């Protein structure tokens, strides 16, 4: 057991998967010599060579399109897109091919690739370096979308993503890349995709949060606990397919559902979860479903990003309002 942060845990997962399976290849901008701009792939090119850890030309659509081509042969490419703000050029490949080839070919071909994308705000980065556009991805058929919130989850979920027979978008909350340390076992078992984790148990209110927002929800829950409100926190970990049963079971118990995401509000995943609760747990509700989210604005630059990001105080205010309803 070693105490690892998220970056180190992802690196460990990559290393162990590459040792396990010679078909696992890494490609992306600066992932080789540089070890990635966040050092997630540090040391991997030295260990596995330039053939398996490829520094690519600066071309995002190319990285994903080429990874797709590699995956058609049964290889397991893990592509890195440096920041979610640079993901848009790849959407053509993801929407038109990556998510479709299995269905298009009636299962003759599949695309067992992983696209790793550091995402989210709160790191005082320039424009285009703080986006959280997971809802766009969740809307795309044929892919899976995974977001870890702890080092151990990152390691275990990435292993599953790499072994998954279908394409997985693996979104890494870069705000907490080095903020949390946790014991991560060597050769840990993969954590199955599509299953939520109960981060904290509570009787009065269910908070659904993922990525860096789990930590904010925890801070809010600590404050609420002092006021006698016990908040339960559910981290879906996989956004597509969503573990709806875990969310519903919790909401049926607490009667209140508060979704926290840093992505924009309209048509965000909070809206989907809200609809789900209406459809499946309406009569258990003691208050309307609430959302604490980013705004339908452009992600502000660092001087303004604290106004945009859901902070514990906003989450607490929303929770109090629900309790008063």
């Amino acid at each position, binding site marked *: 057991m070693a105490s690892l942060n998220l970056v180190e845990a992802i690196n460990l997962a990559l290393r162990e998967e590459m040792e396990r399976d010679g078909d696992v290849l890494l490609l992306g901008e600066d992932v080789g010599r540089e070890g990635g701009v966040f050092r997630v792939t540090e040391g991997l090119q030295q260990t596995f060579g330039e053939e398996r850890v490829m520094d690519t030309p600066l071309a995002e*659509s*190319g990285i*994903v399109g080429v990874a797709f*081509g590699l995956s058609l042969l049964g290889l397991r490419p893990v592509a890195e897109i440096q920041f979610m703000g640079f993901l848009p050029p790849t959407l053509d490949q993801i929407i038109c091919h990556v998510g479709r080839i*299995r269905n298009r070919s*009636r299962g003759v071909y599949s695309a067992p690739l992983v696209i790793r994308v550091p995402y989210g705000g709160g790191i005082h980065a320039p424009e285009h370096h703080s986006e959280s556009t997971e809802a766009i991805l969740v809307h795309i058929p044929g892919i899976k979308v995974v977001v870890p919130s702890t080092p151990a989850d990152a390691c275990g979920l990435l292993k599953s993503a790499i072994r998954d027979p279908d394409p997985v978008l693996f979104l890494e909350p870069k705000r907490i890349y080095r903020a949390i340390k946790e014991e991560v076992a060597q050769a840990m078992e993969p954590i199955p995709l599509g299953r939520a984790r109960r981060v904290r148990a509570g009787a009065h209110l269910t908070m659904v949060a993922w990525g860096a927002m789990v930590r904010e929800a925890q801070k809010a829950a600590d404050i609420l606990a002092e006021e006698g409100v016990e908040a339960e926190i559910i981290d879906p970990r996989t956004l597509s397919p969503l573990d*709806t049963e875990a969310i519903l079971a919790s909401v049926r118990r607490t009667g209140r559902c508060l979704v926290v995401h840093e992505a924009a509000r309209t048509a965000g995943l909070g809206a989907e979860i809200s609809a789900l609760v209406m459809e499946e747990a309406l009569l258990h509700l003691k208050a309307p479903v609430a959302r604490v989210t980013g705004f339908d604005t452009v992600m502000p630059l660092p001087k303004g990003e604290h106004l945009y990001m859901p902070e514990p105080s906003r989450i607490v205010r929303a929770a109090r309002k629900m309790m008063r309803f």
Partner: protein
Amino acid sequence: MNFDDYDPLQGKRLQVLDPEGCADPELLPDFDDDTLRLIFRWMLAARLLDGTCLTLQREGRMGTYPPVEGQEGCQVGSALALGTGDWVVPSFRELAVALVRGVQMEKTLLFWMGHEEGSRLPRELRYLPIAIPVGSHTLHAAGLAMGLRYRGEKGAVLCYFGDGATSEGDFHEALTFAGVYKAPAIFFCQNNAWAISVPRKIQCAASSLAAKGVGYGIPSIQIDGNDPFAAYVATTAALERARAGEGPSFIEAITYRLGPHTTSDDPGRYRSSDEVERMRPLEPLVRYRLFLKERNLWSETWEEQISSEIRDWIAEGVRKAESLPAPGPHDIFDHMYAELPPHLARQKADLLDGLKEE
């Protein structure tokens, strides 16, 4: 044939068979008579099947269809150069390539009839399903080729696309990747002069599209795209380079789309019928007939006879395609993932329940 002898920047272009049916003996591949006739037979088969598709579309038995008429020469010539271990990454107008590579005719028919089974092509064919978003598949060819190289497999990848695709960003990224990683890929551009209504000169200010390949450090050549021998010779040379680990090649085949972009468009709005009539004598079957005739390998009777055989074959293909039932309601869910996720299982159950109630 050496790519270096045909520098596209100097306006050079490879031609083996001229429009009068005369072949350059230096460049003519050493084909026996059967093969020479087979080339004609494939081109004719594509031409006749193309006509059948237009009829089926007019009769409402097929959806929108992109005709191949005029481009059979470069398609048959290039496809015949491939070996069994090689892959084809097509765009959507490669009817003749599909036939030569053994894609069952009914698959192509089914695709344009709107049946999902049209894209279920067995892996052993090494022929990817049709890719409609223009140029996007060139990256798949680069990736596939890089994968073959990584796996130590001998095969190469032949990727087809049109002149319009060379304006797409993905095309440029594909050439960038293939060049950098020395991928055994052949980028085969069928410059058929028109991208729907947009003529070649609006596509790019470069003097040739082959010049774009040069810019990426990739040996590039312009060929007469109505000459199946030129396509064969250039593709063979490109395959040799690929197999020797020398990386990708780019072939710009200058051809002409005699028909509309698809059955949904009216070429009368953007090009003159005079232009089309000027191009007709240059199309591949015209010159190939003359070539065969000169060698006593062609007669009207022979063409009538093989046409009749081909028509029977087409009729059988159409019968097979039309006799396949429409997919069942479960079908739209069952191939989305290796394992049906819970939310899709619920949606599938909803659909099936709803249908039961009706």
